[in-house]
């Protein structure tokens, strides 16, 4: 299991295919990072919205009497 590359710049160059290899891995990394971030945001936004609605409902049922 020896490392295949003799230097880091060798690794980056990918034998002349650097643009294509890193273009593939870069966009894939971007997608796999962005998808969870969006999913977490959506979930947080939904939970916040549902909690607001729950509070509003409770407010209408009881504690609104002082108005």
């Amino acid at each position, binding site marked *: 299991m020896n490392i295949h590359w003799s230097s880091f710049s060798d690794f980056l160059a990918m*034998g002349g*295919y650097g643009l*294509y290899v890193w273009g*593939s891995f870069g966009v894939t990394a971007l997608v796999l990072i962005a998808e969870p971030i969006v999913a*977490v945001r959506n*979930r947080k936004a939904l939970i916040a919205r549902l*909690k607001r609605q729950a509070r509003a409902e409770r407010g209408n049922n009881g504690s609104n009497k002082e108005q």
Partner: protein
Amino acid sequence: MNNRLINWFKYASPQSFYPLAGKMIPWFAAAGAVFGIAGLWIGMAVAPTDFQQGEGYRIIFIHVPASWMSMFIYLVMAFWAALGLAYNTRLSGMMAQALAPTGALMAFLSLWTGALWGKPMWGTWWVWDARLTSELILLFLYIGFIALQAAIDDPRRADKAGAVLALVGVVNIPIIYFSVKWWNTLHQGASVSLNRAPAMASLMLWGMLLMALAFWMYSIAIALYRARTIMLERERGTEWVKETLAAEGAK
């Protein structure tokens, strides 16, 4: 026997699936990270150069897993859709809806990495050949499914419409898979198949299989995560969601 049947159906209700999914997500995510690191190490650091394609072949370590997942997720989505049409279970539509965006992204990655591989190897980003065209159709099927569901307000009706679309589109999956056999395409044949020895060096194969496992685990984790959000939204009027929200804090 009877007991087992009941247990199975128990998890078909969102209420009991929600906490189960919540417990499973970290494990799938962790497994995905471990497989991903191992696969990247083997694929990008130790695997040898391909004698025909030089270092450019390393794109397959994401191209093949992404392509497999794009097809497999579609089959799972269609399976849930069929279940939903047959038994009218609430969970089915939620699962299908949760899977679609990840499937679409996998199809996109398959096409994107394929184009970046095709340019140096074939001399072109894109050709209208059977494999590429059917994969593009798969991406459109996912997008169509998402758009159709988003366009219909009533979630139960949206599920039904989406399910019909998903099931009709299933015919495309064997077309993608066998296109390299059925037609004379520019795309190379399968690198790995069940009935013969893989046509690649063992380190390359291991790198690819580990990456495929990583993509698999990632897809399960993200789909379950999204499914939980969809469950909260769709079941928002119910007691269990109210209790879950009260218990969960801002998590």
